[in-house]
């Protein structure tokens, strides 16, 4: 079958260098068939990930992609280390469905932990195979050979062979061996060092090619005319007035999808505001002021006990105190600084999309379903966009570009405008949490119960489908439920009796998707705030109460290091600040998803009692993600987690009417700015002999609770509703005065 044949052919020359030019080449240059050779994309094959050319240059084919987090550099370090080749000899191709193995979406802090581990095993298998071949050619036993800088030589000295000589232009054809011998971390020269990021110089000198900068010959420009209300239908449209604009080409209408196309970008932008469109009235959203009542009364798909210790209903009652609290967090937009953009070309029944999607392989399946063509006829090629922090508008924009390209039969670049990104990216959902605890006369927690109300787990029904398919009423393919079965919620402590129940909601006010530390940020906000409330009610130091309920050695070590790093003074010795500018500090701790990265922070805040403004002055972070691949890249990630989450905690909140999102730009959806950015001090705990875990999200999860706890420490006011904007803070301060 020709389709299969094409999809399996990778159109590669043996040279890795040529691959790079190909990736950025226009589709018309593809058919240089004589020079092509087959490349597997199987994640079970070494050749799926690695090629070495006649000059010893290495190409890594990575299904994980650089989203601005430093992953590209880190995985390049991993392969260069494990393969024993110079770092500079490796070129990485990312997220191209024709060339790279499907390693799953780049999300959930799994790029190093899972993606890097796959690549490490492939490299170890390749290195072992090269050693075997060298051993027979040199007549020296394998264990008497060493690998260094792409060269295999006898340990005793003497002549060796290079990888290029050993391979002689051949590809790797063996399966990845899960038990191929790995290098001893004590011998690492590249992993564990602060290698400078590969992408940064081009970004600093204006030479980087973001998807926004990518061009095809004959490429047209499109802009969307998204519905006036979230669920509105298109009644009528008329583009007569657009025809006067220079270079206007046409409108594309398919169901409720409406777009304009022009030969130049500015005309496309003008046409989108010139075209007349009439939409049905639609008011299907709840009143924003009633959002949490709406969540509480929303239809539940099912209730699920996610974590349980002992039996909370058996806990002794006599003489006990009960504490309860409710916490809530708002909807968020991803807020990418660059609105989503994609370039699509549909020719001869084949679709190629250059996309900033974090999931090019999933997108390929979704696009094939939407356009009702075999997946073999769809190729998605990753090009970096602006930071996405989860599923922003990238996939939806790509789907619209694909549909427009198919309708007009010419290559097209679609860029969303600011209001499209703020209005139409799938949203981080609002979340509601209830807590109850029973405290005995010895101030022990004898029962802890919590309930979390959030959309059906992320996000089986809504946000992970394609917007173009929704608007144009075309077939949809949502990701299957697999891999989403354990959201990793619960407390990281050992309590005699505790229970967490999730109430998975069927309806969310707007399509929902994941934003950095989805559900984990919300769950940790509730957990760590409520524990702090118990600590205060029982006059136990916040560090002490955490340590008392931890049995995990790495967790205990981390908290002890954090306590010293932040020079924590027990709360009893730290009287509440009575000044107009009240200072306080709070601690928060998490073991991410209860099974991996340990992180704890102490936040120092200043609360302006008059204005209600909260400022985070300083944040101390202790972080243990096992083996560190690149300590500077890790610090960059942790700093980003801290600052971005302070923004989500203090400032960010989506607003909406009964019809549509109303926070459509940075004026109505403000974020944290330079004057309010804190100092960030980081204590990295490196464990070179442990497996590397993720760092893209864990620190995010502890930020809101640390700030809430610090505000309480400063003022006695307990903030339970994110974001902590001045009006809410003033109201909470008023409650303290009232008491």
């Amino acid at each position, binding site marked *: 079958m020709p389709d299969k044949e094409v999809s399996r052919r990778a159109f590669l020359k043996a040279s890795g260098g040529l691959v790079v030019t190909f990736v950025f080449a226009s589709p018309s240059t593809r058919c240089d068939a004589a020079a092509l050779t087959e490349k597997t994309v199987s994640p079970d094959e070494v050749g799926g990930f690695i090629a070495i050319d006649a000059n010893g240059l290495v190409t890594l084919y990575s299904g994980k992609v650089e989203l601005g987090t430093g992953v590209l550099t880190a995985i390049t370090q991993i392969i260069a280390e494990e393969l024993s080749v110079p770092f500079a000899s490796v070129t990485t191709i990312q997220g191209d469905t024709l060339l790279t193995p499907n390693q799953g979406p780049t999300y959930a802090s799994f790029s190093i932990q899972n993606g890097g581990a796959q690549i490490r095993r492939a490299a170890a298998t390749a290195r072992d195979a090269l050693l075997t071949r060298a051993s027979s050619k040199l007549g020296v036993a394998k264990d008497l050979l060493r690998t260094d800088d792409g060269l295999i030589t006898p340990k005793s000295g003497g002549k060796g062979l290079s990888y290029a000589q050993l391979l002689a232009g051949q590809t790797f054809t063996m399966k990845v061996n899960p038990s191929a011998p790995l290098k001893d971390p004590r011998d690492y020269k590249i992993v564990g060092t602060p290698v400078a990021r590969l992408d*940064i110089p081009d970004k600093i000198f204006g030479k980087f090619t973001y998807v926004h900068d990518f061009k095809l010959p004959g490429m047209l420009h499109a802009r969307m005319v998204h519905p006036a209300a979230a669920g509105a239908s298109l009644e009528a449209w008329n583009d007569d007035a657009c025809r006067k604009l220079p270079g206007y080409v046409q409108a594309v209408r398919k169901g409720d999808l409406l777009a304009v196309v022009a030969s130049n970008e500015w005309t496309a932008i003008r046409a989108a505001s010139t075209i007349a469109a009439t939409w049905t009235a639609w008011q299907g959203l709840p009143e924003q002021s009633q959002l949490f009542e709406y969540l509480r009364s929303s239809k539940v798909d099912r209730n699920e006990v996610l974590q349980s210790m002992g039996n909370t209903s058996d806990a002794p009652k006599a003489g006990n105190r009960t504490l309860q609290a409710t916490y809530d967090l708002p909807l968020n937009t991803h807020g990418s*600084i660059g609105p989503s953009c994609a370039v699509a070309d549909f020719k001869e029944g084949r679709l190629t999309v250059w996309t900033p999607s974090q999931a090019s392989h999933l997108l390929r399946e979704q696009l094939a379903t939407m356009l009702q063509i075999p997946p073999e006829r769809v190729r998605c090629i990753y090009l970096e966009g602006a930071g996405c922090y989860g599923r922003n508008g990238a996939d939806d924009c790509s789907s619209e570009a694909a549909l427009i390209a198919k309708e007009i039969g010419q290559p097209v670049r679609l860029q969303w405008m600011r209001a499209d990104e703020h209005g139409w990216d799938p949203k981080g959902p609002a979340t509601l949490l209830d807590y109850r605890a029973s405290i005995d006369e010895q101030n022990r927690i004898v029962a802890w119960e919590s309930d979390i109300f959030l959309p059906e787990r992320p996000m089986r029904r809504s946000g992970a489908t394609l917007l173009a398919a929704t608007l144009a009423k075309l077939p949809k393919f949502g990701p299957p439920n697999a891999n989403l079965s354990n959201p990793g919620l619960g407390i990281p402590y050992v309590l005699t009796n505790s229970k967490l129940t999730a109430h998975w909601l069927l309806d969310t006010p707007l399509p929902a998707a994941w934003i950095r530390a989805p559900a984990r940020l919300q769950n940790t906000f509730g957990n760590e705030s409520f524990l702090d409330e118990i600590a205060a009610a029982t006059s136990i130091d916040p560090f002490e109460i955490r340590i008392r309920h931890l049995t995990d050695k790495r967790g205990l070590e981390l908290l002890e290091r954090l306590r010293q790093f932040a020079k924590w003074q027990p709360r009893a010795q730290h009287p509440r600040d009575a000044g107009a500018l009240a200072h306080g500090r709070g601690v928060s701790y998490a073991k991410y998803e209860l099974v991996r990265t340990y992180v704890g922070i102490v936040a120092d805040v200043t609360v302006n009692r008059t204005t209600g403004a909260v400022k985070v002055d300083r944040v101390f972070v202790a972080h243990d993600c096992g083996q560190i691949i690149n300590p500077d890249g890790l610090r960059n990630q942790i700093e980003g987690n801290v600052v971005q989450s302070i923004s989500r905690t203090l400032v960010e909140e989506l607003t909406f009417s009964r019809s549509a999102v109303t926070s459509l730009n940075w004026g109505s959806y403000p974020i944290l700015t330079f*004057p309010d950015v804190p100092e960030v001090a980081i204590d990295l705990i490196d464990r070179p002999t442990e497996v590397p875990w993720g760092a893209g999200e864990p620190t995010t999860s502890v930020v809101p609770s640390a700030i809430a706890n610090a505000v309480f420490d400063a003022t006695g006011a307990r903030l339970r509703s994110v974001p902590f904007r001045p009006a809410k803070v003033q109201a909470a301060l008023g409650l303290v005065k009232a008491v």
Partner: protein
Amino acid sequence: MITPIKLTVNGKACVLHTEDPNMPLLYALRDELGLHGLHFGCGLGQCGACTVHYDGVALRSCIMPISAVAGGAIVTLEGLGTPEAPHPLQRAFVDEQAAQCGYCINGMIMQAAALLATTKNPTENQVRQALAANLCKCGTHVRILRAIMRAAAQMSEQPSAHA
């Protein structure tokens, strides 16, 4: 009607042909001249990703009609410095690894360069205020501040390097 508009861009004289004198400068620079250092972020002058220098002053190219800058001298990130001859800020941003996705970084460098051209040895607080309307969503602020302070210190030690 096509109106020719004369500009100097990165030291080179050029004539742009636009049918709409209200077209923002951004589209001329990106689409006609292929200068991709500046980015479209909001089209509203709110985020700063599109910042260029116009006669030495930081300007948001996404909202500035091209006719309004006719005859002026524009400098973009590409014209500020090159890998071979970097502006001290560019060197400092690389040295401090002050980028995550990097989409906003053009604006951070161009805004800071305009500040350092008029304010030698700014305090960190002055830098924070000067960049208050430049948005970053990755949370790279800590490094951006470090990079700007490093460049400022270096420029005051060697004032002739980039006057």
